[in-house]
Every structure is written in structure tokens, then in C-alpha cells.
């Protein structure tokens, strides 16, 4: 087994996608070349704990790993202000990625910070040549990021794309074009729940990437639990989002 490491690496690029969402590139060939879609990284800031971010992309030369940072608190505010050249400490890649082998076609659904890991998933699937359809759901046009004209875009306010939630977008898909398909969703919990229900009602498997407040990111503190179905006395089992996930079978999660 390869020894995992805490990397000291440099930020090589930074841009703002929206006023409160930064997109940074981190020069870390070892982590970048081994990361798979759905995995995340833990990045240090001046606060005590590291902050988790889904891998949003990897450069073509496999050297730079990209993450999106949406400001939600003081740690992410500080990290969004990071400039190229800054040295950071990073644990990467962490967690389990999506299964991109077992299905012949994929329907990807994303919203919120979920657009970042789904972007990496889309890029990877595109290279594989498999049929892939992407649905993005945002509140309004000003929130739209990492969009491609081929995506099915939905906004709650209807000022861009289809008015409605991602379900309105999903309903436009011709499933006959998607043989042996799986649905992969990363977004706010209600979006993932609704997408999972939609997939099940169409006889499709759905996998989601869960988000939880994390301590370590490597499975030792047992803070970031996801309640999953289990055949035990409790009727459930608290799995670790960071180590057992963050990707879970929709059907396994207790919503």
C-alpha cells in the first residue's frame, strides 16, 4: 500500500467564479494524479481544523488539482482570499469516489458546491466516451457556475434555463438514450433526496455524495456520521462520511 501523506504544496491559480466562490489550483502531482471523481481534499487554514473540498478538476498534465471554495464561514472566507504562491498543507485525496466503471451511461445532477465534484466526474466520463447527461440546479442565473451549453440547466427563479428544481430538468431526459444508466448526485440534501426518489421511480440506481461537519477527514474521529440502514438492534448504523463515503448508495442512507 502506498503511504498516504500530508502534503505541503503551493496554490498556483485563483479566480472568483462568483463574488463568494473561489476556484483554486493546487500544485500537487502525487495527489492530483491519484484523485478520482467524488473524492475530496482537506486543506489547512489558520483555524484549528482543516476544511474539506470536493476535487473539482485535475489539469491535463496531472499535476494541478482544483477545488472550489464557497464562503460559508471564517475558514472558507480566509481560504477564498488565498493567492497564487501561498503554501498550504493538504491531506489528499480522501474518501471513496464514484463508481464510473459498472454502468454504461450516467446522469449527473448537481447543485450548490456539488457542482465541483460533479465537474470532475463529467470531465472524467467525457474522456471515457460513455453517454453522460448533466443536470445543474441553481437558485438563479447569478449563481450559475461551471456550466456547459450541453448541460440541462434549471433555476428556482427561472431566470436561466428551465424554471424549477433539478427534477424538472431530469424529467426532460430521454431515458431510452441512456442504456444501463446510473444517477450520480451531489448537492444540498433536499436535492439529493429528490433526485434519489426520481431515480428509484425510474428504476435507476442513484449514488450521492454526502456532506457533514468533519473533524479529521480520515476516519479516526467518528464525528461526520451518516445514518445508514442496518440489520442490527438499532435499525441503523452511523457510517463515517469521510472514510466510508462521501459517496453512498442513495438506497442505503436514512433520509
Amino acid at each position: 500500500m502506498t503511504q498516504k501523506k500530508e502534503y505541503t504544496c503551493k496554490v498556483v491559480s485563483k479566480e472568483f467564479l462568483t463574488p463568494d466562490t473561489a476556484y483554486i489550483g493546487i500544485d500537487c502531482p502525487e495527489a492530483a494524479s491519484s484523485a478520482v471523481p467524488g473524492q475530496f481534499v482537506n486543506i489547512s487554514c489558520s483555524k484549528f481544523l482543516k476544511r474539506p473540498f470536493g476535487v473539482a478538476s485535475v489539469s491535463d498534465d496531472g499535476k494541478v488539482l482544483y477545488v472550489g471554495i464557497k464562503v460559508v464561514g471564517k475558514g472558507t472566507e480566509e481560504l477564498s482570499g488565498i493567492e497564487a504562491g501561498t503554501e498550504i498543507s493538504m491531506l489528499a485525496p480522501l474518501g471513496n469516489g464514484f463508481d464510473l466503471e459498472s454502468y454504461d451511461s450516467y446522469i449527473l445532477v448537481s447543485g450548490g458546491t456539488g457542482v465541483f465534484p460533479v465537474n470532475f466526474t463529467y470531465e472524467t466520463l467525457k474522456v471515457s466516451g460513455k453517454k453522460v447527461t448533466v443536470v445543474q440546479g441553481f437558485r438563479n442565473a447569478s449563481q450559475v457556475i461551471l456550466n456547459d451549453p450541453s448541460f440541462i440547466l434549471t433555476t428556482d427563479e427561472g431566470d436561466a434555463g428551465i424554471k424549477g428544481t433539478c427534477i424538472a430538468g431530469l424529467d426532460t431526459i430521454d431515458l431510452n438514450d441512456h442504456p444501463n444508466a446510473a444517477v450520480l448526485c451531489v448537492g444540498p440534501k433536499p436535492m439529493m433526496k429528490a433526485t434519489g426518489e426520481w431515480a428509484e421511480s425510474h428504476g435507476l440506481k442513484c449514488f450521492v455524495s454526502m456532506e457533514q461537519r468533519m473533524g479529521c477527514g480520515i476516519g479516526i474521529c467518528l464525528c461526520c456520521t451518516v445514518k445508514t440502514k442496518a440489520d442490527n438492534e438499532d435499525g441503523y448504523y452511523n457510517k463515517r462520511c469521510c472514510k466510508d463515503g462521501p459517496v453512498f448508495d442513495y438506497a442505503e442512507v436514512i433520509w
Partner: protein
Amino acid sequence: MSAISVKVGQLDLKSPLILASGTCNFGHELSEYYDLSVLGGISSKGLTIKPRAGNPGVRVAECRAGMLNSVGLQNPGVDYFIANDLEYMTGLGCRVIVNVAGHSEDDYIAMVTKLAPYKDKIDALEINLSCPNVKSGCMSIGTDPHEIEKITSLLRSLTDIPLWIKLTPNVTDIKSCALAAQKGGADAVVLINTMLGMAVDIRTRRPVLTNNTGGYSGPAIKPVAIRMVSECYQVLSIPIIGCGGIECADDVLEFMIAGASAVEIGTASLVHPACPVDITADLNKYCEDNSIELKDLTGTLQLW
């Protein structure tokens, strides 16, 4: 014997560094980051008679220089541990300490009775009388010196495996608790577990933790732990394992000078998983630079 080897009672440790219970699970995950044989020992996740799902909701709240947790002793249960993890831990190349938690005296008795036959594999039992995140047992026992002495002597009669009593700092007089453990027949005390704390979400006006309160750990609690180690060292004849906010070699030295024979590294592993590797190198360098053996530092503090 290297310059950093120490003894806790009769137990030789090749290094004073032990991974603290609840911050290393059973060693599998941290083994992906470094060879745990560099350590003096590893203390298992706190175990209970039955599997425990732990507390619901938000379990972690970051604070300045540390964090609150309210995991609530989530663990697979002692039977599962014996069948699946004990053998793995014995293969790690360091001392195996099994952390024992419970809700009642009967629980602790049942736990130690189950673990006693594995004395060839277990180097010490760390009796957790200090977890602040469960409603009964643990800390409610560990704040009463009479209970501490009673339970220690009951467990003492059940096994020859060294008994380390892990105490809570959430008491007025830590000395009386440590002395009670010693009187009950403990081989060592571990000082300290987490400090009971709370964080408030000013937006929702609710505690951040769904359990309302949690255990505060990290560098912020180090001065409290050092003070308690120092106080107890002055009155105890059994060794002390220091624990609380250790992040670097200087922290280890501070604890040892204050009276610790060994130390536990906890929350630091969450942030820098392989920190014990650097700490080990720095401790070796300290010993070489100062031409001393680490164990000779214990209790060399000169109070004003």
C-alpha cells in the same frame, strides 16, 4: 533501549508516545500514513459491552485552539473488537492498550472479565471513567473519588493486566481522584480526558452540538492538563500518563518534566495524522543534544 524509551510501572515502552483513545480508532486508518511501530503504544477506541451507535446530529464544533466533540462512544462493542481488531492491534509493533467504557459498575466488570483472558495480547486496560458524552457511567463515576476507588479495586481483583485509570478534569480536586485510583490498585492514571464545554450558534441560538455539550480537546487544554499532572505527581506513587493538547516534542517534554512517565497524543492526529513521526525525531534529537535519557526527565519540575 533507546534514549526515548520509558517505563510505565513494569511496562516498557520504546517511546513515550501513545495514541489517545478516540482519536485513532484501532489503528487501521493512521497506518495508511505512517508505521505505527514508531509509537510506544496505541489506546483503542473506547469500548462498551454492546455496540453503540453514538450520538445523533452534529458531533463536532471547532473552537479556538481546539474542538468540541460529542461522539458518544460510538464503537462496535467488545466482542466485535476481540474478534476483528485485537489481533490487528497486536501486530502494529507497539503496546496495545484497550480502552474500557461503561454505563455502570456491572458494565465495567463484564468488560474486564471478557478482556482478562487476552492478557498475552493486551498490555494495559485503560479504564475510561471520564467520557463526558454519555448520560450514565463514565464521567459520572469518575467525578466521585469513592466510586473511583471502588470500581478500581473491583476491576483489580479480576485481572493482572495493568490497569490505567483515565480521569476527567471536570472535578474540583483531581488529586483526590488520582489518589482514589491508586488506593484501588491502579497501575497508572491517565490525565486528562476532555473538558466539558459548549459552543453556541448565534444565528439559531442553539448549541452547535446536537448533544448540547461536548468534550473540549486540543492545545487549549494543555495548561490545564499540565497543572493536573504536576499536582498529582506530587502526591502519587504510581506513574502518570499525560494527555491534553500535545502537538510537538516540546509539549511532550513539558508533560514529562511536570511528572508524566509517558504521554498520549489525541486531537493532533486529526489535523496532522503523522505528527508522532516528527515528534519522535525531535525527541531523539533533544536527548542527543542534551545527552540525556528521556525517562530521567519525569518529575524534574522545580516549583517556585
